[in-house]
């Protein structure tokens, strides 16, 4: 690129610098590690809470003390993994 006018050249440089800065800001805006970990952990915990809750209700209702809790705890944990998998897939898609 060769500009006859020196002012134009300077302006071009300025615009280039600003654009670079903008790109840097955009890349900085990407999630922090803590935020990412937080997102993942809430997904697992939420599924576990639901699983344990259902297990306790089932045990209360059918009088099958530990069995319902055990089964639904495992289901809850698996659902947590499923949630994490879905979140990861969504993040991968965004990239």
């Amino acid at each position: 690129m060769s500009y006859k006018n020196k002012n134009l050249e300077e302006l071009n440089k300025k615009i280039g610098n600003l654009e670079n800065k903008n790109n840097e800001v955009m890349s900085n805006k990407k999630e922090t590690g803590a935020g990412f970990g937080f997102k993942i952990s809430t997904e697992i915990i939420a599924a576990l809470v639901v699983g344990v809750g259902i297990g306790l209700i089932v045990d209360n209702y059918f009088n099958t003390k530990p069995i319902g809790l055990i089964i639904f705890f495992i289901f809850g944990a698996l659902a947590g993994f499923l949630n994490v998998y879905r979140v990861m897939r969504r993040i991968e898609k965004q990239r």
Partner: protein
Amino acid sequence: MAAKDSPLKQFEINPISNIELGGYNISFTNSSLAMLITVLVITLFLTLTVNTRSIIPSRMQLISELMYNFIAQLLSDTVGDNGKRYFPFVFSLFMFVLIGNMVGMIPYQFTFTSHIIVTFALAAVVFIGVTILGFINHGIKFFTFFYIPGVPFYMHPLLIPIEVISYLSRPISLSVRLFANMLAGHTLLKVFAGFVVSMPFFTGVFPLAFIVALTGLEILIAFLQAYVFAILTCLYINDAYHLH
């Protein structure tokens, strides 16, 4: 350290006027006041800034239009043409959470999003609404949402409960994320504010500088969490339209 200096003191609910109706305590509390302020701020801001309706917008009108476009774009990106119908709902939800978080950033102000019951109520509205929407759109076929095609038949007794639990965990993860972020942020601010007073000589300047940086981060988180709440609502509405 007495309990009155605790960093968790800011989350206490104090009734402003005691009201009891039919055995239920429905007092007007500082939390209600914060919500009222939030709704007033949103209403006044949006009506006052766009009532001139100039073609060349003023700065304030530009902010309102920016917010409108932001949510409209979000809805059309995630849900598509069907999404326009839900714009008022998602927009009010987004604005309520966003301005609620921002009002909470003002010193001495109460942050109502730092209470799980508030965020859970919001998430429950979304969850129940989306479930009803799914039944309206697909009728009884909505249950096929939990059925994954292309899986050996003997896996279904295992997979369907997992899918159901995963679906039921949505409102919990939605509410816990917002609540925990606000709670952690505000507690951290208070803890470091305590360091400013208790550290000897002039060394209190360092935590003070840290608080300034942390306040900036908190404002970013306040916006980010409102955005996450809105985008997840959009995704759930999308799920109610397109099973799988």
